[in-house]
């Protein structure tokens, strides 16, 4: 696949993404730019593991955290981003559960609980990693209410997406997620 062809495919993918429609008329919690930078936006892909979420569509818009320098990096040089999640068709969580949002390094070596997302609402979090995953799981609210936040998810993964920087993997395999092809994460030609 050539670079340009791949990018063209992505533009098509993102350009037709229903997450945009959600963003324009979203309910409470929408506090971000309605036209996020396309290059950093990525698709949230459903696992179809939880009943009622097979048709779930969503996207993660990523912007640099404000800094006086035009781009924001931490002292070790990692980019710091604000991540904004929006979904279309996120149902009420079954059996009194909660939809929990997690941000993790792409090798899952570090996991950060970001909070709960409600149907029809946008969600914002912050991340300081160059490559990261956004993951939504179905959790028991009691498990989320622990002091200092839960260390890791217990419930099933509902939907997940990989930051655009996760695409930097050619020539060296797909890292810990290489069992799945790129398309399963929203990348690749024609999704």
């Amino acid at each position, binding site marked *: 696949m050539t670079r340009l062809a791949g990018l063209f495919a992505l533009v098509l993918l993102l350009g037709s993404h229903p997450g945009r429609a959600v963003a324009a008329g979203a309910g409470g919690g929408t506090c971000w730019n309605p036209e996020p930078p396309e290059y950093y936006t990525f698709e949230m892909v459903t696992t179809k593991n939880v009943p009622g979420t097979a048709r779930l569509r969503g996207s993660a818009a990523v912007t640099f955290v404000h800094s*006086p320098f*035009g781009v924001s990096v931490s002292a070790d040089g990692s980019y710091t981003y604000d991540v904004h999640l929006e979904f279309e068709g996120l149902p009420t969580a079954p059996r009194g559960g909660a939809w929990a949002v997690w941000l993790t390094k792409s090798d899952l070596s570090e996991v950060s609980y970001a909070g709960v997302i409600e149907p029809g609402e946008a969600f914002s979090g912050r991340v300081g990693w160059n490559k990261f995953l956004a993951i939504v799981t179905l959790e028991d609210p009691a498990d989320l209410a622990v002091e200092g936040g839960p260390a890791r998810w217990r419930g099933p993964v509902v939907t997940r997406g990989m930051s655009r920087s996760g695409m930097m993997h050619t020539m060296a395999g797909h890292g810990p997620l290489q069992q799945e092809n790129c398309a399963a994460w929203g990348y690749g030609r024609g999704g």
Partner: protein
Amino acid sequence: MAAGAEGMRARLMCGIAASALLLAPAAVRAQMDGMDHSAHMHMEMSGGWRMPPMDMEMPMLPGLDGVVPVVEPFMPGMGMDPATLPEARPSELVPMADGDTLAMSVSMVRRTINGHEMVMFGYDGQYPGPLIQAPQGSTVVVRVVNEIQMPTTIHWHGIRIDNRFDGVPGLTQDPIGPGESFVYEIDVPDAGMYWYHPHVREDVQQDLGLFGNLLVTSPDPDYYGPANREEVFVLDDMLMDAQGAIPWGLDAPTHALMGRFGNVLMVNGVTDHQLEVERGEVVRFYLTNVANSRTFNVTFGGAAVKVVASDVSRYEREQRVESVIIAPAERYVVDVHFEEAGEVVIANSIQAVNHFRGTFYSKVDTLSRVTVQERAVADDLSAEFATLREHDDVQAEIDAFREHFDREPDHHLVTTLRVRDLPLPIVQSMEMDTLYVPPIEWNDAMPMMNWLSTAEQVEWILRDTDTGAENGDIQWDFEVGDVVKVRVFNTPDSFHPMNHPIHVHGQRFLVLSMDGVENPNLVWKDTAIVPVGSTMDILIEMSNPGDWMLHCHIAEHMHSGMMFNFSVGG
């Protein structure tokens, strides 16, 4: 390059005059085709091309063995004995009053970097050039005598200067030929730290030592707030191997894709910069990045840092930061509080990119070692440092422009590039590369590909998307008093996208927003970085009449076409 008059101008700015050939080695291009590595060793002895250092664990692309840039190599003073040249002196402070004149030479000097004695250039025999200090509102005169074998000019970067003295060859003045002189009258309307450098083959002349600072002092002694001392840090890098500096391209720059990243980092021209401070000192650092292409992320160990000012003014509000991200040509003024005794390493701390492995990896290069003594500073400024000052006067000045913040842009620029005739392995490799490009290129992750791409093969483009005009064909005309909103989009959809520090001559601007997110703390700038994939909205105050440039400040990008002129009438 664009055809016609603009193309002529571009060639004038890019080309080295025929006299420079006197210093260049004989053409060896024809001998180099098909040579292997042992041949490279031979070429080193003849003053020809030798491969750039490959220290990135990056495998050489198959098919590139023995390939060299399509331009001839250029080394100043090739064949000269450096001992015949005066040893350059460190920068000296030159306080000037209104109307004072400084005679300043541009000459060849001897310098030693990383153990290598080299023929380099210097302003007044110094590295960096003299630190010129002038009171705000004054006019100082600098008489420049060109004693090197290349034409040159001086651009007074960031100064809202009289157009005649902006130092752009072919636009505001004729280049200063070897043996010639030019008198610059420099009005300095804004307090702050500025710098000066040539506008002829910046990739060569600036890299070889032609840069210096111009400090414009405010009549207000409390302009920045109290500090125990002030330090000027000029950040630079140099591309060297065991033989010394890698040659530059004679007729056009090499390293056109990513710019010439150096592998030897320097503060004020030295690789072992050191400071000694007393415990508790608040040190004000004036940072200037004079590197061709490198954006630094400057850290100060565990010491507390606040950013006070940038290119052309103070910020609306002082702000705590962990590090300072400074692109080529930018300046930042930061206060640093050294509270604990011991050693503090001032470093460039980045997540470098390895495109082959698809990874980021931590890279920390020491820029300066600060020894904080046990003895406490007599004048304790902790309380003042802890205060984040707000500058009502800065905010009030900006208030007059807020009515323009939310309106549609007057002009749209997109940055991209075209390539032609690059070696096939490079083209194929780029096609195999991933679909992700980091927002900022922190390191040269493809040293061989980058070196081989010259301005003959790469054209970097600023395109006006409203008219379709590119680079020199863009014509913008304004009047004094116009307030112009420009949206710059750095498209990721190109052969090799890269961040660009965009510089506007003769005026000042505000960065209103990045990627649609409003900037909550404004500062007047002359240069601002546009990361890959990002959209930056800037508001330019057209306050200064004349013909001015807008260009990318990566030297190799500018010389690969990434520039145009605009006029301000009145």
